[in-house]
């Protein structure tokens, strides 16, 4: 593959969904040997643009050229694939009832005849080994049994695997949002190797550090348009944020938060089932408690145990106030796809809105409208279907569901996946304000920046608590160190 060859270019692409103008005259070009970073707020049109590139959405206007051929009329998923353009979407596309190997076969139709299962397994396993050494995924694993991080890994490996057509361009839409720091690092290293060997990658991420570190050129989108496009070296974190159109807030505003004394009876306590020593998780009223460590080390299970303890007695956990949960895997654990944004927000608060025996629609409308304004859910009408929102805005609706409920304890299962920086800052601010007002947050996150918002952090490894850090002891080194080495403590 030669360097600098034009793989694909889009020319004046428009796309509307009803009244929403998702793309307005977008030009985009991608050459072999480059990693193109794509940033922008939720709803800026990034995912729509990638759907157009992948052939899953047909633009209303504009031209699509692949390797110089005008394919506007015939462009679809099959054409994109045959031309070596692959895509890993935010919404994962694996079949949950099939194994890892079988999912590889679904994608590669040329794996046929006797022994296809073994060959498909080897294909995907080799790629997994190459990208994520030490991944511990077997080809026979059923995808539905894998956690969200492993599903994402399989999806990525599948997109890079080759049978009869070459891979020229891979689009990665928020690929690291479900991965912990180590896996994300492995992936980005692989992307760099792939690009150096003449491949091309379009990388979408809300983590600007990732973009600046990995991409050779950065495109900024806002309101359906490309507003900036320059070599990555010419951007800084602040200039990127400014180009995206939000004011860069003092990055360390959060660290002004002082540690509180831990007194009185806790509102929640829990001990992992496999904990051998006396360590336990304790949360006091008004605290923000962080659960850290690598992905999938028992943090989600801990949150589930706390959630279950609000309903029935549990040996693992006890809570003294009602509990709400903001799911991280919003597709399977969060949204109700047939419902409006309004119904999705009010479901956890209906008990407050009952008059006589019936739910009062006016109170529902008031609550949804209030939260739409409060956290700026981008929609003209909360009566629209939840799927009309971009991924980040769907997540905002889920936040509204939890924060709008009466729950005194809010559990958060790495909820900021696919949420842009401006929204994150808003949500952090809201969490702090709610905590001041006496709400308790227990927050599993894989991002170090988010731990800085916490009063107390528990580091998990192998399903157990291995470190218990108060706010003034919290450093990135300590978290990373304890994530990797098992403490005897």
């Amino acid at each position, binding site marked *: 593959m030669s360097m600098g060859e034009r793989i694909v270019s889009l020319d004046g692409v428009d796309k509307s969904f009803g009244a929403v103008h998702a793309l307005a005259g977008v030009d985009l070009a991608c050459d072999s040997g480059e990693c193109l970073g794509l940033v922008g707020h939720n709803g800026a049109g990034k995912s729509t643009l990638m759907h157009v590139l992948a052939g899953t959405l047909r633009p209303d206007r504009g031209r699509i050229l692949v390797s110089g051929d005008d394919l506007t009329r015939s462009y679809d998923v099959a054409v994109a694939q045959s031309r070596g353009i692959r895509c890993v979407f935010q919404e994962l596309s694996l079949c949950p009832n099939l194994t890892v190997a079988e999912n590889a076969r679904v994608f590669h139709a040329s794996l046929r005849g006797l022994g296809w299962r073994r060959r498909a397994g080897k294909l995907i396993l080799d790629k997994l080994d190459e990208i994520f050494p030490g991944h511990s995924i077997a080809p026979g694993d059923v995808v539905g049994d894998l956690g969200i991080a492993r599903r994402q890994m399989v999806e990525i490996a599948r997109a890079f695997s080759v049978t009869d057509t070459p891979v020229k361009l891979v689009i990665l839409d928020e690929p690291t949002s479900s991965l912990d720091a180590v896996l994300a690092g492995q992936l980005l290293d692989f992307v760099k190797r792939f690009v150096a060997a003449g491949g091309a990658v379009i990388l979408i991420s809300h983590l600007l550090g990732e973009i600046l570190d990995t991409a050779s050129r950065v495109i900024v989108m806002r309101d359906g348009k490309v507003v900036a496009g320059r070599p990555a070296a010419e951007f800084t974190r602040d200039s990127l944020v400014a180009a995206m159109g939000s004011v860069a807030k003092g990055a360390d505003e959060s660290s002004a938060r002082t540690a509180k004394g831990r007194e009185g009876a806790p509102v929640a306590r829990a001990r992992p089932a496999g904990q051998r020593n006396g360590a336990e998780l304790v949360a006091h009223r008004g605290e923000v408690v962080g659960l850290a460590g690598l992905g999938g080390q028992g943090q989600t299970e801990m949150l589930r145990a706390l959630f279950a303890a609000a309903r029935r007695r549990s040996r693992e956990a006890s809570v003294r106030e009602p509990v709400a949960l903001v*799911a991280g895997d919003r597709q399977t654990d969060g949204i109700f796809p*047939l419902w409006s944004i309004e119904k999705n927000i009010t479901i956890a608060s209906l008990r407050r809105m009952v008059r006589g025996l019936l739910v009062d629609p006016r109170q529902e409308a008031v609550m949804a409208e209030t939260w739409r304004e409060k956290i700026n859910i981008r929609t003209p009408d909360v009566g629209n279907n939840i799927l009309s929102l971009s991924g980040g805005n769907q997540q905002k609706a889920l936040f509204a569901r939890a924060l709008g409920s009466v729950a005194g304890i809010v559990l958060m299962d790495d909820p900021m996946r696919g949420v842009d920086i401006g929204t994150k800052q808003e949500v952090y601010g809201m969490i702090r304000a709610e905590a001041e007002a006496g709400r308790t947050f227990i927050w599993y996150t894989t991002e170090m920046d988010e731990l800085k918002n916490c009063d107390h952090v528990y580091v998990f490894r192998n399903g157990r608590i291995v470190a218990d850090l108060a706010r003034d002891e919290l450093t990135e080194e300590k978290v990373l160190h304890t994530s990797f080495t098992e403490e005897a403590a």
Partner: protein
Amino acid sequence: MIRDVLRKPWLWSFVAAFLVWLATMAFTGFKGGGELISAALTFATFFVIVGIGQMFVFTLGPGNVDLSIPATMTLAGSVAMKLMDTQDSMIVIGLLVALVIGVGVGIFNYILILGLRIPPIIATLSSSFVILSAAIAYGRGLRIKPPPLLAEFTTVQVAGIPVLAIAVVILAALMGVVLHRTIYGRSVTAIGQSIRAAGFAGVPVERIRFLTYVLSAVLAALCGYLFSGFSGGSSLSMGEQYLLASIAVVVIGGTSVAGGNGNLPGLWGAALFLFLVQSMLNTYQLSAGLRYLATGLIIIAVITAAGGQKTLR
């Protein structure tokens, strides 16, 4: 406004019912059209009663179905008839006993489903054998007449419209309110869309599923009680055609088989349609084989016409 109505999936079942009625009338030269409508209303009433319960069960999501409806009808009908022993004074007690039987069957079904983790389709199928055996053991297959007052109530008409049909129209409207405006109904549709998301949103999933299976069994018992009154007594085979009918009216009526999207008005359209198709084919005096073939094709056509719901994005 008109476009909103046209987009409703239940509309098709009424259109289909009307077309079938027209087709029948064209054959008979528009004689007996009124009688045909009152007969259709009468029989559709019973389909709708069990259809309501089945619809709530379907709305719980894929895999949820109640196959014990016919057996529950038979047991409730025969026990109530034997207990009332044709005395008008026992009507209320007979009704209560029938409803209690429904509650019992619902609890039994749910024990199998939750306690023993048997899939609903198998659980309700096997429980229906147990229930039917109980009915046989209790009634010994004897046909006992209903109290005259009950027979009267289930057959009386006002201006050609059966009183029972009016009552069940009101029942369906009430259940529509339950589905769309109560916490229970909202919970059922939440579970039907995503049982995990419902659990994390704080919906008491198991309690709601339990209540729904009980509701279905209670409505089946009510239907058995009323149908025994209507048809001059209970019999062991009285529930037979209600197994498929209860499922067909739900599906033809526009309720999503994938769950989360219940539809009450459509039950009436579909129930009328089912009855009218049968009587149309009888009027045409087709052979049995052709009748079955035509019934199948017509149902497929209606579901296809109603099923074109577009998804966003």
